[in-house]
């Protein structure tokens, strides 16, 4: 199965805990494009991220999500992942008793089962070593339990490490910049930028413009109250930085 080249979100309405959060969101992401979604707290950013991967607590009440034209609403999260979707979590789960190495091996295998070529152990170790260096992570990370007792910054690096190792076609980054100091942000952005190319698309969700100094989006969207309120180019982010969200909500 080849990885998806296009993610379409059509008139998406999503409910969680009896409350409607997304109220008719439209967005299309092709590989080769980097989209940023910005929005104030409570606008529905994390709901969008979780819904795209199929979190069981989020219910799609109307609209559709399609990969290469095929609806994925009935697909389990792992099927979506095998089609090329990836979510870098804002708050990654801690998994005690499972080493990073063991987990990455299993996750890589799961991908490969959908996509053909299997890697030998030595190839796999080489790949890991290279990506760890890129993210300035020590090899001892591989023997630690996945995210267990990791600092906020370590967790974010681990998300980007997985992104770099698993090489999805469309990645969603949910506030990956939050809680990172400037050096860590630069490292994480470098890891992300190494993936950018014609076969890779991304949706970068953020509250602040800061990350967009290091990750260059082609499109910027502003999410307000569960809908895209405005779309534009990179200049939109700068405008927001200067004027805040108020000018949109007041309109």
């Amino acid at each position: 199965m080849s990885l998806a080249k296009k993610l379409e979100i059509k008139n998406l309405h999503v409910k969680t805990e009896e409350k409607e959060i997304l109220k008719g969101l439209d967005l299309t992401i092709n590989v080769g494009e980097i989209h940023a979604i910005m929005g104030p707290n409570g606008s529905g950013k994390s709901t969008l991220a979780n819904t795209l991967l199929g979190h069981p607590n989020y219910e799609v009440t109307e609209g559709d999500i399609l990969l290469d034209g095929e609806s994925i609403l009935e697909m389990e999260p792992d099927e979506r992942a095998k089609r090329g979707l990836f979510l870098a979590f804002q708050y990654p789960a801690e998994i005690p008793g499972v080493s990073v190495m063991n987990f990455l091996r299993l996750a890589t295998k799961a991908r490969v089962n959908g996509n053909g070529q299997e890697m030998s152990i030595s190839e796999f170790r080489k790949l890991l070593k290279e990506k760890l260096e890129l993210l300035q992570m020590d090899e001892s990370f591989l023997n630690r339990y996945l995210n267990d007792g990791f600092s906020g910054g370590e967790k974010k690096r681990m998300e980007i490490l997985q992104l770099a190792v698993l090489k999805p076609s469309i990645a969603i980054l949910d506030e990956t910049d939050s809680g990172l100091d400037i050096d860590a942000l630069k490292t994480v952005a470098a890891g992300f930028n190494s993936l950018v190319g014609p076969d890779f698309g991304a949706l970068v969700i953020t509250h602040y413009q800061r990350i967009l100094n290091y990750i260059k989006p082609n499109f910027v969207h502003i999410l307000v109250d569960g809908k895209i309120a405005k779309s534009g180019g990179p200049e939109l982010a700068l405008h927001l930085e200067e004027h805040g969200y108020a000018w949109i909500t007041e309109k």
Partner: protein
Amino acid sequence: MLHPPLDREVMIKKENPHLTRKNVEALAEWQGNPDWMRQARLKYFELFEKLPMPGRRDEEWRKSDISQLAYDRYVPFLTEEQPEYSIDSLPEGFQVQLSTEEQSNGLCIAVDGRKTYSKLAQQLQEKGVIWTDMKTAVRKYPELVQKYFMTSVDENEENKFTALNAAFWNSGMFLYIPKNVHLDLPLHMINFFDNTQLLHNLHTLIVLEQGASAVYFDEFASSEKQEQAWVNSAVEIFVGDGARLQYISLQNLSGNVYNFAHRRARIERDAVMNWLVGTFGSEFTKSTISSILNGEGAETQMLGIAFGERNRFIDQHTHQIHEAPHTRSDLLFKNAIMEGGRTVYRGVIRIAQHAQRSDAYQANRNLMLGDNARAESIPALEIIANDVRCTHGATVGKIDPEQLFYLQSRGLSRPEAVQLLVRGFFFPVLQHIEQEYISERMSEIIEERTATVIDKI
């Protein structure tokens, strides 16, 4: 769920017509026991007769209902001819994996208590290591056996079933490791049970002299039968000054077995006793494990994993007994419980007045793999010394949906993700097994069991 009535004082009203003084004598005679062993059996028979059948008023038995034990039916020995088994013709249903010479320093298989195969590495025999069945040991090494038999605890701490075991023991092993002898691979004991009439009364004695070290792998399995079987086993361990023993057990008995296991270790100065007890099978298990830290600087690690299946009951008791200063005990018991399964854990920490500067830790973690699973955890602390550290804690939890979503979002299917989380739950215990063939066996059993309940999680 209905609880059995709590006012039932005696759970077994029936008498067993075979558990008589005459039969103690007959068993001693049949085994060719010397007089001191005959006397010892009779002494414990008297104790057995004197002690009441435990009931729900006894703290240790409060949670266990043994009214379904067909107590009156079992015989202490078999008089008729028994089938002859060998390593090439093991009984039907024998699915236990044998270890190779690269995996163990010795392998012994007993079917219904009768030695069917046994091998101990030549170089160990030359160094004076003794590993044989109890019946032979009593005859060939009387001074050694007499010195240790039933001396691991005071007589007044025995209960009905340990007294029964001592009076009517009919099988079990004797291991003796001389001073400063080290075994680099485990001794692998396989206890297989087929007969459902015989009361399987195993008594095992393990003695490590000063500075010796070993790993003992004790495995319990049985054929699948309709009729109930009863195993009442005892293990007594003596770890001499500076000696070091790891005792690993894997109990994977069939669903028709009532399993009572009494295990205790006396640990002398600077010695280390590490338990790792895997409880996966049986209909009913009542297990007691005691570490008696008898010498200054003695240490024990007590690890347990158990998998409570549907309609099964596992009751585990542990005793961390600090009798000397500067002693350490570290305990972690992890249970996974399936829908309709039930476990009880009761952990006693006792620190005597003179056992100052001791350190005791106890944790019981329970993972529910379905609704209507029950896990109870009861700590009991008796701390008389005033300059000690003692920590204990218990938790009950379920598979976390956020963890599942996280793993699934990385491409792992739901069953794969659940398996990984359950494996992760048990890993902190299993990582203490150095021999891969043993930890892999336990992992396989865990995976198999987990697979049957994945859709209920």
